[in-house]
């Protein structure tokens, strides 16, 4: 298929329109001219007929007839464009030969006819003159040649057709240039768009300089660029993060394996090297798994295996799991509030574990960590608050970033590779929730939310609440739930 050009199409359409309008106007002019010429011809015919009529009317004797004949001959032009003929019953009162031929058209007393062998029509009119004296009733026929009219009309039509063709062609050419000119903003848009490249990702189309018709196009292009840019940026930082985080364990692995192999080592030494290697491999495995987890959340993957549960009950389990770390740090934890929400309990536990571990690491002995669950609209907020030093407000927004550490050093990187809070954010995203953080009055609060479909809460008795949600579980979700919990089931089967 031939690709279409907007300018060419516009020019063609304009040309068709111009041709149509020109033809309309030309036809009108032509018709007006024809009517006028016809009118003119009839008038001149009438003039001649009137003169002849007067001459014949007052002639009553055959003696005076030759005078009439002479005058009638004078009336007839040399080119015979006007002819007069008189017929009567009396042969003494005759003049000329009346015209006969094929009648082309008739309008009142005017008859247009084509004499045999002639190449043009004659317009005739016939007057009956009543008898006078010795003269009987006679018939006066006056005829006028139409050929000059026809010639004029033909010339006019030819000139008109030529002008229409020329005009249409001009419109075509001019409208093509105008269309090209009008499309110039598109060319600018194209130039701007082609300047966008991976090295120049911040480049956007300037919609202010464009006609408002192109606003939508430029804006949707820009937002598409924005989305791509975000995705590209994530991918780039993901690659950089992974490479950076794997560099340390790989360096250790290469180094200590080389050292171990440069001399004859005892079995014990080699075992130690292997064990140390294993620890590094384990660390790499954790990083890979966590990064893939984050990447999946980045790609907008939603949590599956959602089960509507009491979040307080889930939090209880997490607190029980963290009993020992809490005890070791000599801090206590309280739990308040409750709400039901469809969550993947494994993911929920992981998020809360990370928040609690973060709190435990950042508060001193004797402190109290407060876990609170509350429903706000269609979100359930889970917050973990601990007394701690004020966090620089500029850093608050980055705390949930990957590999972001409040301490610039990487001294504690072995314990937690800086993904704890990023994973909390990913889990919140997977549950259509968000994360929040605040640092006020010596209390640092970290939290996340999960979406809870609008629930009908029926209070049956103080302390007991029945909740009905509209959450539906698809078969595939259930299957996925089975997949997620198969490990637990295996474990349960054994114990």
């Amino acid at each position, binding site marked *: 298929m031939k690709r279409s050009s907007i300018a060419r199409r516009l020019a063609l359409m304009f040309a068709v329109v111009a041709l149509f309008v020109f033809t309309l106007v030309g036809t009108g002019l032509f018709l007006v001219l024809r009517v006028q010429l016809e009118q003119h011809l009839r008038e001149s015919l009438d003039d001649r007929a009137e003169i002849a009529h007067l001459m014949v009317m007052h002639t009553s004797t055959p003696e005076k007839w030759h005078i009439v004949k002479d005058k009638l001959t004078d009336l007839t032009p040399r080119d015979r464009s006007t002819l007069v003929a008189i017929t009567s019953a009396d042969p003494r009162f005759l003049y000329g030969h009346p015209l006969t031929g094929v009648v082309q058209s008739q309008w009142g007393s005017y008859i247009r006819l084509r004499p045999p062998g002639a190449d043009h029509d004659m317009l005739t009119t016939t007057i009956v003159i009543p008898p006078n004296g010795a003269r009987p009733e006679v018939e006066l026929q006056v005829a006028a040649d139409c050929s000059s009219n026809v010639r004029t009309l033909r010339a006019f039509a030819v000139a008109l057709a030529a002008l229409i063709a020329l005009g249409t062609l001009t419109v075509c050419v001019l409208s093509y240039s105008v269309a090209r000119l009008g499309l110039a903003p598109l060319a600018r848009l194209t130039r701007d768009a082609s300047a966008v490249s991976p090295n120049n990702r911040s480049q956007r189309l300037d919609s202010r300089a464009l006609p408002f018709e192109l606003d939508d196009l430029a804006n949707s292009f820009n937002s598409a660029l924005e989305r791509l840019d975000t995705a590209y940026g994530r991918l780039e930082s993901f690659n950089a993060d992974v490479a950076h985080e794997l560099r340390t364990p790989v360096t250790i692995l290469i180094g200590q394996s080389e050292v171990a192999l440069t001399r004859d080592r005892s079995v*014990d030494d080699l075992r*130690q090297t*292997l*064990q*140390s*290697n*294993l*620890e590094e*491999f*384990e660390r*790499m*495995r*954790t990083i*890979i*798994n*966590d990064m*893939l987890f984050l990447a*999946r959340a980045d790609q907008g*993957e939603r949590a*599956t295996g959602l089960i509507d549960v009491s979040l307080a009950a889930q939090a209880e*389990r997490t607190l*029980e*799991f*963290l*009993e*020992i*770390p809490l005890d*070791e740090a000599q801090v206590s934890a309280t739990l308040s509030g409750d709400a039901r929400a469809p969550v993947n309990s*494994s*993911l929920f*536990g*992981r998020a809360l*574990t*990370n928040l609690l*571990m973060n709190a435990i690491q950042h508060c001193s002995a004797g402190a109290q960590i407060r876990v609170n669950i509350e429903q706000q609209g269609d979100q359930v907020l889970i917050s973990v608050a601990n007394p701690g030093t004020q966090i620089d407000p500029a850093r608050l927004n980055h705390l949930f970033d990957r590999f972001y550490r409040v301490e610039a050093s990487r001294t504690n990187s072995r*314990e*937690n*590779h800086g993904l*704890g809070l990023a994973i909390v954010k990913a889990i919140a995203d997977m549950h259509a929730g968000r994360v929040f953080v605040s640092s006020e009055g010596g209390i640092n609060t970290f939290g996340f939310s999960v979406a809870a479909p609008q629930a009908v809460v029926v209070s049956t008795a103080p302390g007991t609440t029945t909740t009905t949600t509209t959450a539906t579980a698809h078969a*595939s979700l259930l*299957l*996925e739930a*089975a*997949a*997620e*919990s*198969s*490990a*637990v089931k*295996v*474990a*349960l*089967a*054994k*114990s």
Partner: protein
Amino acid sequence: MKVLIVEDEHKVVDYLRSGLTEQGWVVDVALDGEEGTHLAIEYDYDVIVLDVMLPKRDGFAVLKELRAQKSTPVIMLTARDHVNDRVRGLREGADDYLTKPFSFLELVERLHALARRTRAQESTLISVGDLYVDLIGRRATRDGTRLDLTAKEFQLLSVLARRHGDILSKTAITELVWEVNFDSHTNVVETAIKRLRAKLDGPFPTKLLHTVRGMGYVLEVREDMRSL
């Protein structure tokens, strides 16, 4: 116990074969999908380890053909951590899945579970050396002395005692004791083991609870402390 490994990566096959053979398994290996299908259908295995990405015929195809004839338990290995792969595998009849990279210990755990191995200790009273763990009475004694354990410590001890002689990974312990099945990045297990060890081995000359560095923990009587 017979296991069939269908996997095309030689290094993986090598360590699985030697590792599982050392643990008392009889190991058969197929290096591609066609051979795997043939062996899986011709012979009776207690469990099959099936990689998804295989030459000639992929894991799903092998599974489908096998399931048409046999219900041998299958554990699938996948390098892609995609929900679709997992769901597809399970829907088409796999019994369990493991995502690469996985630990050898974890695979062994899953294999035991799938093969429904009759455990050496099904009784409610387990003895390891001079340690007696009474699962019904929920009490443990060593050398006749009752150990004063918290509920969780007892649960941890009973998990180790049931599988005494086997190395249990931290992940497995977290799952079995706390029912937590994610990488928690906490020192819960280390600390719990440390506390249990203080009560279990602290007052006694022979140590029963051993750390296998980088792998996990094992409860057993050892002649020589440096033997592992």
